[in-house]
């Protein structure tokens, strides 16, 4: 029987301090009071003063409440029974079905030994030309979607999840609006993907502290599956809410803030999650796609800024489209040389021409005279946006490349696109040439 402590002598924010001994750093406790029982986690030890963050929040906690330490850190089951299930931010079922308690693993485990990683080598096909052609997603990549409130980032996540050829999908929702949660769950269900998914959902209505556990639980489960040789895709939305929860706790603990109130270890905190993306030498892989909403559409805000330094590229989602400029997949070189030999050439030349289109557009709006070349560019830019950038377009890589050639041929002469002659000879559509 574990000892129960009563002497809570500080309650501030979501953190309480209790007098106790024999407590281990990071261990869990149960706080029981008039409002029921809540989990809590040890975040600081100082002599006999133990500070805990209370998952359900400190509202209604009295100085006489009972604190019982559980003698174990936060754990989650890594078993296959998790598939098709929905849990909340404490790891408790959200779907009125029984708890899963076999094969428990500790969350927030140690980092992977870099010498046990292999170079990423498999493309993940999404059917979205802006990704497949221009910024190829690669297995084991960690990639954020930089966006702003109101953009269809959850729709994009759902689409990628459904089309990607992976064994398991893990969705970690942080501060999700309830209807976003329902949308994501229903979409997975409709497409028959729920049976290979695990959902950890913290909604905006849930206590803030519970948000902090979501990435760690999602990634611990992902790791368990990946070690069995499975290819796992982890979707995290929205990491800015996670960072804000970190900020809240840090301020409560009177840590000195580094930048706009965020704690100095924000980079390390984010990195320890994102770096779980891995391709194991001799086991499966973890790919992470995360949504980071940029407050004020400002990429220099600490959350997107630190994220950009950690992740392997980023997708900018703006006006419902993936931006061709700024979006980047650092790993695309690992795979796009092996898809089709015109892939890289199409990728470079279409973006270059689109950049020219943008400056032609600017010239037009300033009232400068449009040359014949400018007119060609204007036609091209419009087609490019319709056929490549529109998110409703859903075609595989090879037809997308053919469509790219088609588009070029409709707008330009072969010598104008800046592609090597032998590729043009092989791929330039014959029909349009005759017209």
């Amino acid at each position, binding site marked *: 029987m574990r000892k129960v402590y009563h002497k809570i002598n500080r309650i501030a924010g979501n953190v309480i301090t209790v007098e106790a001994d*024999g407590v281990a750093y990071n261990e869990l406790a149960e706080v029981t009071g008039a409002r029921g029982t809540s989990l809590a986690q040890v975040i600081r030890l100082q002599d006999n003063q133990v500070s805990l963050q209370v998952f359900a929040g400190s509202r209604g906690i009295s100085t006489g409440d009972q604190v019982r330490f559980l003698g174990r850190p936060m754990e989650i089951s890594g078993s296959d029974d998790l598939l098709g299930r929905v849990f909340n931010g404490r790891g408790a079922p959200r779907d009125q079905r029984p708890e899963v308690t076999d094969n428990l693993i500790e969350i927030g485990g*140690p980092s992977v030994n870099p*010498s046990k990683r292999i170079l990423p080598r498999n493309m993940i096909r999404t059917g979205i030309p802006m990704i497949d052609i221009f910024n190829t997603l690669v297995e084991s990549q960690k990639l954020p979607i930089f966006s702003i409130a109101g953009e269809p980032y959850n729709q994009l996540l759902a689409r990628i999840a459904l089309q990607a050829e992976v064994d398991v999908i893990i969705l970690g929702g942080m501060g999700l609006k309830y209807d976003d949660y329902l949308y994501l769950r229903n979409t997975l269900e409709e497409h028959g993907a729920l049976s290979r998914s695990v959902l950890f959902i913290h909604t905006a209505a849930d206590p803030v502290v519970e948000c902090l556990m979501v990435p760690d639980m999602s990634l611990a489960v992902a790791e368990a599956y990946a070690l069995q040789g499975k290819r796992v895709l982890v979707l995290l939305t929205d990491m800015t809410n996670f960072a804000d929860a970190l900020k809240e706790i840090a301020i409560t603990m009177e840590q*000195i803030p580094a930048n706009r109130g965020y704690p100095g270890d924000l980079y390390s905190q984010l990195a320890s999650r994102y770096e*779980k993306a891995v391709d194991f030498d001799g086991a499966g892989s973890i790919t992470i796609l995360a949504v980071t909403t940029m407050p004020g559409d400002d*990429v*220099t805000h600490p959350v997107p800024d630190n994220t*950009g330094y950690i992740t392997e590229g*980023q997708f900018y989602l703006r006006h419902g489209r993936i931006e061709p400029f700024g979006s980047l997949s650092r790993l695309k070189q690992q795979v796009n040389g092996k898809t089709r030999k015109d892939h890289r050439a199409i990728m470079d030349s279409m973006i270059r021409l689109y950049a020219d289109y943008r400056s032609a557009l600017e010239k037009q709006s300033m009232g400068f005279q449009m040359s014949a070349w400018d007119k060609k560019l204007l036609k091209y830019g419009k087609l490019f946006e319709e056929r490549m950038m529109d998110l409703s377009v859903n075609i595989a890589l090879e037809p997308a490349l053919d469509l790219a050639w088609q588009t070029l041929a409709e707008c330009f002469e072969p010598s104008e696109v800046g592609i090597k002659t032998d590729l043009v000879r092989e791929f330039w559509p014959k029909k349009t040439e005759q017209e």
Partner: protein
Amino acid sequence: MLDGNTGTVVGVNGNMLTVEFSAKVTQNEVAFAVVGEERLKCEVIRVRGNRADLQSYESTNGLKIGDAVEFTGELLSVELGPGLLTQVFDGLQNPLPQLGERSGFFLKRGVYLNALDRERKWAFTPLAKVGDQVRPGDRIGYVPEGIFKHYIMVPLTWRGNWELTALKPAGDYTVDEVIAVASNERGESANLTMVQRWPVKIPITDYAEKLLPESTLVTCQRIIDTFFPVAVGGTFCTPGPFGAGKTVLQHAISQYAEADVVIVAACGERAGEVVEILREFPHLQDPRTGKTLIDRSIIICNTSSMPVAAREASVYTAVTLAEYYRQMGLNALLLADSTSRWAQALREMSGRLEEIPGEEAFPAYLESLIASFYERAGLVRLRSGELGSVTIGGAVSPAGGNFEEPVTQATLKVVGCFLGLSRERSDARRFPSIHPLDSWSKYRGVAPEESVAFARSVLRQGAEVNQMMKVIGEDGTALPDFVVYLKSEFLDYVYLQQNTFDPVDGATDAERQRYVFARVVEVLGTEFDFADRDAARRYFLELRQLFIDWNYLPFQNEDFKRQEQAINAKIEECKRYA
């Protein structure tokens, strides 16, 4: 190694422990916190009364109040000896592949391994003889390592004069075998092996004098060697926002730089990037020696998800290894990516210590720490008369890409060369994205200074014309101005930009740089006659293509010469004759 000095944990806050002790405690000494079976390495960073604050190099999960802490009395040290090259270490010098063999996929905490292989035998040749008077740092013999002689030195931590009383003959020995015995006038006797230890945070200063770095450290990157050169024994920094190509540039330098030993310190960055080095370096050939790149490299890898305090240690571990090889009369190059992560580790610790914060919550001592780190670089004359050097290049990752932040500013104060990477240039796919107008270097480059100054003036004028054109449009720009702009673009495309991924264009040696740069400067200085702006643009596009193709041809082969003739003909085409 224990002197029986123990304490007890009285506080845990993140990776900081507060420990109550009774005996003597030394600032920066190593201690071990005992959690069950595991012993977690820590370092004393502050002492107040009978309590010491320790930063833990491992996760502190599971530690309890009252847990024992064993003080070792030794400062954080690394092992120095043959067998360091080709290795991959974490920030505390644990060999990662061996850790992987032992603990599997994950870095289990509390596991510490010897940095050097204890089984391997080295062919030792003595240089000294019994009866010789020796001082710390004196060479008593050598073993072959890679392409050079690895000198076995009297441990640098010894003090005073010693006399060799025994010395093993030439033969194969492991690093732990006693190869010599020495005694001093105080009557003390000590054993010498091939491995010695040195505290990482203290510079090795066993040399006759520090010299002014003069010769260029050729990196085979044209914009660096010609415009913003790095000196052998100098320092440089590469700040840039994310996505500007810092890592690609560091990789290129680590591959092509003309140094004897290259130490790559991946400090708080992505693991994937280190994996590229780990998997590629063993297969890439070092053009200078014909061996593989890994044969001259040591990789210190403390990526962003590995413990933060060890990240701070990793840059010191790396520079200590560089200094050690310098003592053998070699040129060592240290590339640290990124020093901002190291500074952030300091900030995290400073926050936990509740120190009064400086700008952006960085500690007030940040500047002096950065300065003393870069000061460990230098060209020195050893006591043997040989020259050795440590060159340090640090990547900086400023928040929001803004160079006004404390780490960039503190770094700029102490380095000799600033290679500022710009988002603008990387967005335009102009790589390496080193900004040609903002960057600077205090060192001497491979090309004649007056040509470089002239080329720079063309770049500056071209940028001015470009600015003007944005306001008044191309139509309003006079033809001579427009030609200046085209010339600056020409210089940018054919000389400043370089394709790292091409085997020929990716590495331009000093001789070729001088040769090609002379031709480029010739074009810049030539007066041309053009009918109109369109003709000028077309001409420069064609000339540019000729030069770019030229860059991809091996130096002085037949194609190269043929291409040069085509270029000559092209220049003649529109040259103005007075």
